[in-house]
């Protein structure tokens, strides 16, 4: 097994409940299990079960993973623009933040991190007619920018997850690719 | 002339469609193009003139999002 691109990966992903964020995080984590000895995926719900904020944290490493909960991570993906300010502080210095552009009202204050605004909802609607794929667009953008893991692994994961559901699979792959593309120019 | 007025509170509606199903006069419909702030499909009173304000839509709205009034009018002009 060839060593992954990165020796250790840390990602926090946040958004509004309903599964999208958790699913995208799971895809990333599952993909990483092929490359890393240790992978952790941790979901965190807010108090209410419906419509509240959720976040998940993914860590992968060939060394022992001490804490699967992180104060700060190298990568942070914010799927709900309103949460941008809450999560700006949770990026490690030198880290990357991917933010949904739709609804984004504030600007980054930190200078020691890279913040990339991605019009994921727009892109998703462009593909499937609904915002559903937005999380995958964001994930694509994140993987594209950070090269944290080979994109093919995520695609492989998608194929396994949606085996037999060709239409859904196609839309998801497209959304993920769109994310990769959106950040190519960067 | 006795008429009905149906007011749907968009902040409360959860788009279940019960009002649509139970209006005996087919006054309400989910037209598919309007969403509540929570992202649910929002029903619309499509035939306001048909409403003989029976209150059934309000009665079975789980969100208690519907208020129904009856009123009589006369043309002024």
């Amino acid at each position, binding site marked *: 097994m060839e060593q992954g691109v990165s020796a250790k990966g840390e990602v926090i992903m946040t958004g509004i409940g309903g599964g999208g964020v958790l699913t995208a995080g*799971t895809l990333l*984590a*599952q993909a990483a*299990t092929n490359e890393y*000895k*240790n*992978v*952790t*995926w*941790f*979901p*965190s*719900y*807010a*108090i209410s079960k419906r419509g509240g*904020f959720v976040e998940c944290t993914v860590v992968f490493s060939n060394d022992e*993973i*001490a*804490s*699967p*909960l*992180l*104060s*700060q991570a190298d990568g942070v993906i914010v799927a709900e623009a309103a949460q941008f300010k809450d999560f700006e502080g949770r990026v490690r210095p030198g880290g990357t933040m991917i933010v949904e552009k739709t609804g984004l009202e504030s600007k980054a204050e930190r200078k020691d991190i890279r913040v990339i605004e991605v019009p994921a909802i727009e892109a998703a609607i462009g593909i499937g007619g609904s915002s559903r794929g937005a999380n995958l667009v964001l994930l694509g953008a994140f993987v594209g920018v950070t090269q944290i893991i080979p994109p093919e692994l995520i695609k492989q994961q998608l194929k396994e997850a949606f085996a037999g559901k060709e239409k859904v699979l196609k839309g998801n792959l497209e959304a993920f690719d769109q994310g990769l593309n959106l950040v190519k120019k960067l | 002339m006795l008429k009905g007025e149906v007011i749907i509170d968009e902040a409360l509606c959860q788009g279940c469609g019960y009002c649509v199903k139970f209006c005996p006069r087919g006054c309400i419909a989910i037209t598919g193009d309007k969403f509540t702030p929570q992202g649910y499909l929002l029903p619309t009173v499509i035939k306001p003139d048909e409403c003989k304000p029976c209150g059934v839509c309000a009665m079975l709205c789980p969100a208690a999002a519907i208020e129904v009034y009856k009123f009589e009018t006369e043309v002024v002009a």
Partner: protein
Amino acid sequence: MGERMFIEGNIAVGWGAASAGCQAFFGYPITPQNEITEWFAREFPKMGRIFAQSQSELGSINLVYGAAAAGVRAMTSTSGPGWSLMQETMSDMANAELPCVVVDVQRGGPGGGPIRHAQQDYFQCTRGGGHGDYRNIVLAPASSQESCDLVQLAFYLADKYRNPVVVMTDAIIGRLRETVEVEKIEFGPLPDKDWAVKGKARHKDGKRRIVDHSGDLLRRYPSYRALLQSLEQKMKQMQESELRYEGYKMEDASLILVAYGYTARVAKEAVNMARADGIKAGLIRLITAWPFPYQVIREKACQGGKFLVVEDSLGQVIEDVRFAVEGRAEVHLVSILDRHIPTDGGMILPDKVFDKIKEIQ
């Protein structure tokens, strides 16, 4: 030999039990342990083993009592409120000397509390929990892998001591998905359960067996005193033989963190951060919450170390640590009040612990 899976702690509990040859699971829904009950509902019938949804947590533990009395490995799982409901029977099983495994996936309390994580059942788990003099071994997994492995150990220890064993986990460990090697662990031979009720026809000597939680009827022991003496003996032996903990960077540590479960993971990260900062921090991670490593901590205290307990409660483990140090060392606390968000959505995160380390070192 084992199978590699990417599963959460709650699911790992199931695979651990299956590997240990658990034959019967009884459970009642309660968040955040539902995944465990649902796993058994799904997998056990396929394996030809017994699953039944109980009518309540009273039901869960009493059904377990029945299956355990019948001589098979049996278990249940629950969370705080349900765990409280089980205490009468837990006490009875200690008296009846029935082995079983109970998993408590801790959530917030007291009372209904929030259904998310917390670590507030420590006293209840480690002091027996119910009425009367008895103790249970309490295992505290801090990862999916350990959730799988310690459940297996729990079954072994339960049979070894003919006593219930508690696996005290929490909603974070329960939902944390990790790579797990699922493998049957051999712990060594155990005597036959010749005491179990199976109908006289199944006993070699053809004589009746009685499972009794009162110690009165038919005089399992010559006197109540003899029963208590035997229980005391058992508790002593468990304390001597079953203490388990992980020492992390302890050799030269002068600031020693003590934690179990999810906060032990967080504390370990904080130790790493401290070490990177040149601070000689170390960690004692409780694998058994009872027995507790009093002696280990006492020795460290004698050598002049300071202590920092990290627990997601108002302070329970800290009492054991203070008991251990006997006033010889400072003992500090990062508690549930130090969560990163001041709602029940919060967790204790590594930074907070590291800040405290810097503050007190």
